[in-house]
């Protein structure tokens, strides 16, 4: 689904990604873990070109997103993204947040788009918030709407950038539950998170990153039970107390 080939990203003199190569298969749930500043969010943002890589290629469904003149917007339609800060549109109601992009990009008739939006609202358990403005919702509710908004484009892959890091602890569960249901539906997902329990439970593959490179990757069992690299061992010993 997504191929990352020797991707590098520098901000000024600082090289945040120092050659990342990996491949995400359809149906996989890839969880990226690692210390702050290791480049995991930057890598995720390189996948949909919110951060264009300084070097290397990102190929999505056979199309090179890093090629000059490629229509990045069209490719992004099939890559949903959920942000740490939710980024709902404050001037639009919940329902408009969900329908705005599919209507503007003519992803179906008005009736089809609205029917899908209604069913997504039910799916994230917020049907009654249809006409509310984002500012009246809790963080957990906002993030569930953000997931519904991304799903309304019927994406082939969903990217999650620390989706629970800005939430109060009691709201983390409701967001993770929606994500778990997505996993059960077979959605291809790439998740950057600090929720190790969740990573272990839903991840089909774990990438451990540090200082701009993938140090180690494997099944949750490999990484959490039998980490090979001393830096992985050190990191896990700090986060899994």
């Amino acid at each position, binding site marked *: 689904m997504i191929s990352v080939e020797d991707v590098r990203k520098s901000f000024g003199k600082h090289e945040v990604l120092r050659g990342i190569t990996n491949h995400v298969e359809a149906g996989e749930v890839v969880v990226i873990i690692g210390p702050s500043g290791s480049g995991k969010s930057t890598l995720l943002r390189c996948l*949909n070109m*919110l951060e264009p890589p300084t070097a290397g290629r990102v190929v999505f469904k056979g199309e090179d997103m890093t090629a000059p003149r490629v229509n990045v*917007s*069209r490719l*992004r*339609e*099939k*890559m*949903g*993204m959920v*942000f740490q*800060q939710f*980024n*709902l*549109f*404050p*001037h639009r*109601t919940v329902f408009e947040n969900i329908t*705005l*992009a599919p209507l*503007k*990009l003519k992803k179906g008739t008005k009736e089809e788009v609205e029917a899908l939006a209604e069913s997504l609202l039910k799916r994230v358990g917020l049907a009654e918030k249809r006409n509310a*403005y*984002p*500012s009246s919702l809790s963080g957990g509710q906002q993030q569930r709407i*953000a997931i519904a*908004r*991304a799903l309304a*484009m019927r994406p082939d892959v969903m*990217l999650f950038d620390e989706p629970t890091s800005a939430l109060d602890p009691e709201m983390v569960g409701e967001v993770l539950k929606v994500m778990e249901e997505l996993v059960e539906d077979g959605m291809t997902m790439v998740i950057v998170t600090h929720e190790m329990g969740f990573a272990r439970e839903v991840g089909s593959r774990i990438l451990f990153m540090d200082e701009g490179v993938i140090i180690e990757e494997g099944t949750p069992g490999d990484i959490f039970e039998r980490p090979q690299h001393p830096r992985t061992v050190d990191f896990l010993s700090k986060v899994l107390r």
Partner: protein
Amino acid sequence: MEFIARYYPFYISGTVATLCIAVITVFFGTIIGVFVSLFRLSRNPLLSAPANLYVQVLRGTPALLQVMIFYFGISRLVHIPSVYIGTVNLARFIPGCAALAINSSAYTAEIVRAGINAVPIGQTEAGYSLGLTKAMTMREIVLPQAVRNILPALGNEFISVIKETSLLSVIAIQDLLFVASNIQASSYLIMEPLYVAAAIYFTLTCCVSAALAYLEKRLARGWR
């Protein structure tokens, strides 16, 4: 105060002229200003550099001088026939309004730019991540939010413009100030005609302030 009874029709026509100039100036000034601000924010230096220069020059020279340069400059380049609408001569009115609109656009451009920059970058990223193009994201997501940041400052600009219309009296446009000084001359009164003009300007700017306060409240409905 009996001079008012005699001269009030002149005050009315002067007030109407002042209001027309202000509305036309703000209308075109805002449209031009939005485009200038988008050019200034562009990453392409071929767009941003001229837009920067435009703003710097217009803010760095006196508005009165710009009015005179426009009036004499346009009159030399193209001949605008002397067509009168009421007491207003279009040959003076058009260059005068153009000068004020362009002057105002430089200030508006800065207001709009600040308003756009105040919209969190995450909003743009959310738009892009959904597959919206740059233009759609700007139109549907950033600008509507920027409008609310911009409105208070834009209201102040509108009030400034109402006051700056008085500059056009130097090119003999019969606006409120011009009318007031004519009344001074013909009534032999020195202060009173000016006081009346001041009261009218003040009433106009107060009305605009009140209208804007109402509009801001309306826009704040629903979202915070």
